[in-house]
């Protein structure tokens, strides 16, 4: 019995990706500037992880929650800025209270007050209180994590390839991270600790894509010593295109399942990842690869990894 796969994607394509670089560079530059502008003007909607404050998720015991009534009950407690919103289901409500002035002890009073105001009429699903010390630290650590990841990758790629590749990969990564921050600023989605985790995963994923393309470029640089660089870059992107798309699709299938069925708690996290996969795939093809044309690459790879080519040819 033969059970043959269905080869979705046309092979031997010659899409002129690199030729489109001015379009993609311009488009991406505009998006990056817009992201930075959104970040600076609107700013991120920081969750309590980074801002400090309290959060209570409740489920009403009898029917859909009456947000207005809840607002009346809690609004009078003098807790400052409060947001009350439906969370995934009509009987599920998320209450967020801003950081209280007056140090660590003041934060503790929030939950006590809200619990006594609401009493036993609701089920307390989740409470979180993050004090000023911890939120400051989480903020700093989050930034350190993203920057360290990018630096580590810069060094790894430099070590495995050449500095031009390293720079191209990191440019693509910074592009992905900035666009993610931009979309979170514009949509005002809650930016919390798990989004940092998502960004780091995006860094890993986007790089994964970029490395696959770069690997093929390096291989073709050895194989076609006379081919023009632009032509060679296009060839490499086209050769790896089916893989790039197949992997993106499988990853997106898994992520969409998570986004739709994984519950409200991790929806922001999966949204960031879906965004990251799309942006990361785009940047590998349209940013990372064409940048090599600008940075220029070493054409003579005979001294480096030559043995590998020989052994694998047989």
């Amino acid at each position, binding site marked *: 019995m033969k059970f*043959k796969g269905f080869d979705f994607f046309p092979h031997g394509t010659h899409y002129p990706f690199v030729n489109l670089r001015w379009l993609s560079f311009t488009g991406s530059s505009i998006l990056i500037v817009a992201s930075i502008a959104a970040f600076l003007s609107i700013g991120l909607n920081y969750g309590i992880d980074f801002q400090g404050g309290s959060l209570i998720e409740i489920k009403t015991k009898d029917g859909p929650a009456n947000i207005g009534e809840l607002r009346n009950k809690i609004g009078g407690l003098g807790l400052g800025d409060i947001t009350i919103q439906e969370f995934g289901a009509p009987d599920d409500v998320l209450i967020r209270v801003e950081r209280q002035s007056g140090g660590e002890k003041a934060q503790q009073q929030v939950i006590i007050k809200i619990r006594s105001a609401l009493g036993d009429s609701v089920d*307390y699903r989740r409470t979180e209180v993050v004090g000023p010390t911890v939120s400051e630290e989480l903020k700093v650590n989050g930034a350190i994590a993203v920057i360290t990841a990018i630096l580590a990758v810069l060094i790894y790629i430099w070590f495995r390839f050449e500095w031009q590749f390293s720079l191209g990969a990191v440019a693509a990564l910074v592009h992905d991270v900035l666009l993610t921050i931009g979309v979170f600023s514009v949509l005002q989605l809650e930016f919390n600790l798990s989004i940092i985790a998502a960004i780091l995963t995006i860094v*890993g994923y986007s790089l994964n894509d970029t490395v696959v393309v770069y690997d093929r470029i390096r291989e073709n640089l050895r194989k076609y010593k006379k081919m023009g660089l632009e032509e060679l870059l296009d060839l490499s992107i086209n050769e790896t295109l089916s*893989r790039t798309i197949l992997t993106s699709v*499988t990853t997106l299938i898994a992520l*969409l399942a998570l986004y739709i069925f994984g519950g409200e708690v991790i929806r922001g996290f999966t949204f960031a990842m879906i965004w990251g996969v799309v942006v990361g795939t785009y940047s590998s093809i349209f940013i990372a690869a064409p940048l090599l044309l600008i940075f220029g690459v070493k054409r003579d790879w005979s001294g480096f990894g030559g043995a590998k080519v020989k052994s694998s040819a047989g």
Partner: protein
Amino acid sequence: MLHFARWKVISVAAVSVLGMLFAAPNLINSKMLEGLPSWIPHKQVHLGLDLQGGSHLLLEMNQNELISEWLETIRDDARNVLRKEKIGYTGLRPTQESVILRIRKPEDQESAVKALNEIVQQLQGSVFTGSGGNDLKIEGGADGLIKITPTEPALTERINAAIRSTIETIRRRVDELGTTEPNIQRQGQARILVQVPGFDDPQKLKELVGKTAKLTFQLVEPSMTAARARATRMPPGTEILPSSDEAGIEYLLKRRVIVSGEDLVDSQPSFDQRTNQPVVTFRFNSSGARRFGRVTRDNVGRPFAIVLDREVISAPVIQEPILGGTGQISGNFTVEGANNLAILLRSGALPASLDIIEERTVGPSLGADSIAAGKVAAVLGLLGVVVFILVAYGQFGIFAISALFINIALIIGALSILQATLTLPGIAGIVLTIGMAVDANVLIFERIREEVRAGKTAISAISSGYSRALGTILDANITTFIAAFILFWLGSGPIRGFAVTLSIGIITSVFTAFTVTRLMISYWLKSQSSRNIVVPI
């Protein structure tokens, strides 16, 4: 590239079977698990607080309190020494980090420093720090100034000791809740992480864990009231403390402590025989009982105060000498309040107060919902990927999917063995791995397709497909691994759980792509009778 030595085949099979064996306990519930023979692996994946519900508190010890308390002791010691030596001094007081004083006659300064050296103690020292050195540094300055400063290693030692004893005390208190496997550990310099799975009443936990519970018995100053002392002048050796339950009421107490919580050997919640109010009974050790007996004998008819964390719980009048070393504390307690106080007194006081700097509690219903949602997402995600891969790669797709299932078994098995914590983001990590694990196979299969198109025979196409994809797969996965490692290093709690499953997933997916599918393909090739094998992708 397609030939496998027998030992390789056996070890690949062994790893896969072991993975499934260690993952298997997670499929059945823990009751059934107990009935199984002992040689079968029993460890299940350890669920994080966000999945099983529970409370997480991050506490920070107030180190300054510890230091200022120590400085006060130094001040008292210094006073005693100088009095004994009959050396005149002025301005003896603790500052931020030292105790300072001024010797009246400059010619006495040298002998004063010498005498004060009596209170300096040798530090224990350890294997790492070598011999300990001194705990205090005594310096003489101009104009008879003397400065006594605790040394850096001595401070560290104090803080370490205080944290150790705090952890022990907290453990005793949390154990009283009767929950299973609380996790109490130090974090950084002066922080303590308390995680109590399955316990979702953060209020009660905080009352037990956050209270210093310093109990003292002090006499009430009889000469005047607190209000009068505020208005006129405080009698020497007294202090004003507020009532714990009556707002605005204050007591003027003698500073001297008759007995403290350290002298208690037991304390239990109970009911007053006459009023039927909840009370806390206690028993002193023998020296505490002796001191308490002597003071109550000398002060019959006067009130004394029971003080907890610098608040007066009650101030009863001494009716008769209390010689038996037992007694009861009656305040306006609820049953639960009496119970909590008894626990606090039994487990002892904390060396310094704690601040709760982070609190996260997940109720059991949310945890269960998250697990259910995670399962649905995982199954549907898996289903989607399986269908897609079957369509895209046909028969080879079956190999890839078999490898994917073994991969998932390996991840769960590894989580079970390592007893790593599975969190909700961790489940996301597994689902993401399902999507990304296929990548290694996609890389290989796409490469094989290319080689076939280039006119190679099936065997050589498959063989070079594998070897050429190897470098790419390694580079691509190492970079993701770097990101996962940094997440693990800097993350905490649920995020760390995500980093763990992601890293394990990367390792297992590279392993399965290079061994399991390759093995299957190599057997498939051998099974082909035709000389012109067509690659079915």
